[in-house]
């Protein structure tokens, strides 16, 4: 990609993140910036610390050291809700969808819109508004394969489910969207849908971080590649100026060229 997008000021920045579990060092001095409209691929072998890092920046666990900034302001996430409040949205591999509920209900699960009486929110659902917004959001993301948003999630394909989970993540002002192996369980065509969706998010100026094992997809969709190895961020490349071999070498720990 062009030089310019990586020069944009980061919307999210993690500096010197460290985490230990007992005597084992899971993360050491991890520093990474996510920029608006930039797709960052986070790659690395199993156990390299990718998941731990993502858990730290989404508030699932708290780092032992390091600082995080959103829009230049210092933040601390005590729990996932705090991260969400700051616009850090994540879609984990299990998607956290309730199969027996409809698409709309899933998109608004635990952030339901309520009918207001005299300005005070009642427990009654504002189904019309939820439907309008959910429909608009799906259209905006170009998820054309979903026709009936009243359909239950259990009737959807894997790709559609992934799309719903992503659409839910960006429903409320998302600055950063973190996707954990979004195509791991999907076929070719459905992976394509999800990659297109990631493209849309980039166009809208959302910072996206994708954890992936599929290097072909990484090169297709990302603007920068961050390689983790043994709990450290061993290299960060601009995708357009690196080869697959170099990234593999960095993942394996062979002598690589730092960008």
């Amino acid at each position, binding site marked *: 990609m062009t030089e310019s997008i990586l020069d944009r000021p980061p919307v999210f920045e993690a500096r010197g993140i460290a985490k230990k579990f007992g005597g084992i060092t899971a993360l050491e001095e991890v520093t990474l910036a996510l920029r608006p409209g930039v797709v960052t691929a986070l790659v690395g072998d199993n156990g390299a610390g990718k998941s731990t890092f993502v858990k730290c920046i989404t508030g699932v666990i708290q780092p032992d050291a390091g600082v995080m900034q959103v829009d230049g302001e210092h933040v601390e996430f005590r729990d996932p809700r705090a991260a969400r409040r700051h616009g850090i949205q994540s879609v984990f591999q299990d998607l*956290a*969808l*309730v199969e*027996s509920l409809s698409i709309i209900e899933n998109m608004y699960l635990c952030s*339901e819109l309520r009918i207001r009486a005299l300005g005070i929110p009642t*427990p*009654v659902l504002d189904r019309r508004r939820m439907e309008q917004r959910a429909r608009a959001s799906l259209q905006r993301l170009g998820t054309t394969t979903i026709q009936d948003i*009243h359909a239950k999630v259990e009737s959807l394909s894997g790709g559609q489910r992934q799309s719903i989970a992503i659409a839910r993540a960006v429903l409320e002002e998302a600055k950063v969207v973190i996707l954990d192996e979004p195509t791991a369980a999907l076929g070719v065509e459905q992976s394509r849908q999800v990659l297109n969706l990631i493209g849309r998010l980039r166009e809208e100026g959302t910072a996206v971080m994708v954890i992936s094992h599929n290097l072909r997809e990484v090169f297709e969709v990302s603007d920068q590649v961050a390689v983790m190895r043994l709990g450290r961020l061993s290299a960060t490349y601009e995708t357009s100026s690196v080869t697959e071999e170099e990234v593999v070498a960095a993942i394996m720990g062979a002598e690589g060229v730092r960008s």
Partner: protein
Amino acid sequence: MTAVAALGAESRFPQRKANVLVAAMRLQQAPMIIALVVVVVFFQLATGFFLRPQNISNLLVETVPLALIAIASAIMILMGEIDLSLGSVAGFTAALGVASMAHLGWSWEAGLLVFVVSGIAAGALQGLIVVVGRIRSFVLTLAGYLVFYGVQLALLGPSSRIPMPTSPLSNLAFAKLPLWAALTVVALLAAILAYQAVSRWRHRAERPSRLALRLLVPVAALVAGVCAALYVEESGGFPLQFAILVILILVFSFVLSRTVGGRHLYAVGGNPRAARENGIRTGLVRWTGFLVAGGLAGLAGLALATYTSGADSTTGTGSLLLSGIGAAVIGGISLLGGRGSVWGAFCGAILLAAVQNGLNLMALANYLIYIVQGLVVLGALLLDANIRRKLVTQ
């Protein structure tokens, strides 16, 4: 059926016909209604007086405790739990409620509160242990089933029976609504169902033909309700208890389908992990469910106590609990959790109450009644599973 066939013929694609039929089944709890018709015809032919106004009136009253336990079971099953103590809790609240009026001389208003509050307390206590102690509800409520039955016997004392003192409450089971009031309740019910049908149709921007289909349910409810009200008028009027039950079910249906708490209950039952990851306080939701189910069991205790004019050692025992769970499952409350509606449980309760009533009219031996009831549940389950499988493959 002709209306359905006509809708199918009118559609552009032959495949639509099948879709309409499937939609009709989905809408109308079809297997249950077919089963109910079969049951009614059978018992009318077998006894000759099943359909008499007096018996229909009795049947409606007998449905009330069963339906209350069925709704309570439905709530439990919807959130992925089960409560085996509901029958015992009903018996316990009946004993406590009647004792408070008979022994302590409390007013009937205070007695009414005792029924409801003791049921809620029983549910809240068990729910607390399940949620905080991380115990399976199946096991805990099995213990609760024994404990509350023990407390019931203790409250009843050596005579094993406390008669209900005369009060407006003691007559509740036999209180009748005047015709205009019964028709008002029916009209209200039909109007609400019609409103739901129309708003759902408009909401989803469906074809006009779908509106006719969606309106079948409210129209059927209106016709059946008016006929029932006019018919039982001959026996003195429409049972007040049943009217209260219908209003209660309307309220529960609304809360479960249209409020945040209701949807969270479905989410917790459908996929507890996903619910938690989305920030739903699953423990609180489950505890509330237990509490509400307990309250409904308390109301069932009240219905039983007024029906038998007191509490005794058989109140809340027998097949009440298992019929209630059976009614919920027959009514489409999936044992997987998170799927089904209270209307289904209500229809299931009517079906099972009709079977019970008919078998009693036939003066069959007790053992036969149990066996036939069990077989009806089994048959309805098989039919239900079959249709659901078709819905899935469709």
